[in-house]
């Protein structure tokens, strides 16, 4: 075998390079996002609950926002009667973000993790952080 040593060394370096991202990535990146509900509005709530159950919100909030938007803008109906009978003004800025006033620590935490970039904030005004 010609230059056997060099080839083997080359192979080791090659494999090492290819595997580097996996080795250095171990334990990183998979950390589940942990959205914070530590806001003044939520702190003031006796029973800390969202518009619907947490599991529903987690998986359905994007659809819910679409439905709210269409109901308000297209059908002229502004009130949402939730599963528990509570009524909410269907507004992204004036309802969701009044409770979740920590967008960076809440919405963005998950969205960065899943790579979602809702374009809503090009128009809708995000709450002033730290408030």
């Amino acid at each position, binding site marked *: 075998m010609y230059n056997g040593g060099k080839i083997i060394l080359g192979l080791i370096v090659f494999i090492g390079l290819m595997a580097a991202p996996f080795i250095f990535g171990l334990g990183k990146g998979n950390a589940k996002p942990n959205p914070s509900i530590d806001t003044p509005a939520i702190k003031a709530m006796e029973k800390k609950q969202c518009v*619907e159950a947490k599991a529903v919100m987690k998986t359905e909030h994007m659809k819910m926002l679409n*439905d709210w*938007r269409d*109901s308000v*803008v*297209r*059908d*002229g*109906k*502004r*009130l*949402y*009667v*939730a*599963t*528990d*009978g509570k009524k909410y003004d*269907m507004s992204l*800025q*004036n309802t969701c973000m009044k409770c979740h006033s920590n967008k960076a620590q809440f919405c963005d935490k998950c969205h960065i993790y899943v790579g979602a970039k809702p374009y809503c904030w*090009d*128009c*809708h*005004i995000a*709450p002033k952080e730290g408030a």
Partner: protein
Amino acid sequence: MKIERREFLKLAGLSAIFGLGGTAIAASVQQTPSYIPDPKELTGKRWALVINMDKFKTDADVKRVIEVCHTKHNVPNIPNPKQEVKWIFTEMMENVFPEQQDKYLTEHYKHMPFLTLCNHCANPPCVRVCPTQATFKRKSDGIVMMDMHRCIGCRFCMAGCPYGARSLNWIDPRPYLDPKKINPEFPTRMKGVVEKCTLCYELIAVGKIPACAEASNGAIVFGDLEDPKSEVRKVLAETYTIRRKPELGTRPSVYYVIGGMKDAGKGA
């Protein structure tokens, strides 16, 4: 164990009743979410405005009305007239009522700025040409609405509107908003969408009248054209009013009272 056919049916019936009752009980606790209008909502079949130009005594009166609307809706103040965005604005008489031009018209009217805005036409050309139904006419009350979420910025509506009531956001509007006056309860818009007056549908929905009428000290009257007892109908019955370019058949819902006309403004 062997069950007779009869026994089986009895059991099945019982469990069916129980099952149904069970879901009914569950339903009384857990209802499916629903969407309802605010009980305070104003209802009308065709909202209209009567603008009494005689009651706008000074430029300041006009400016105040524009300012209130534009602040409320985060309408940017872009100095370049080719890029400006406006919901309610002024135009010279010759542009608002070109067919009324007459060289013998009093100087006063020739140089008077007229307040103009979306006419919320009964037969709106903008709606007909919109390819995405981003602009549409509300069946319930005739407001010509804008759904900013659907607008693709094609500007067909701007070509269709004979009144120049629509503006495209040529640039990002946010740098042109006064940070001290921004209304955090209302969205802004973004580059590439068309916007215009929506007759304050968001205020009507909670029982308030449009902001321009509210701020006008009685110079703008708001009401339901189809209700014979409404304030706008009272003014229309008592006063001679005109609409913009009626010959086009768009049937505007914005009426003007112009001074010098007999009895002008008495009812307003």
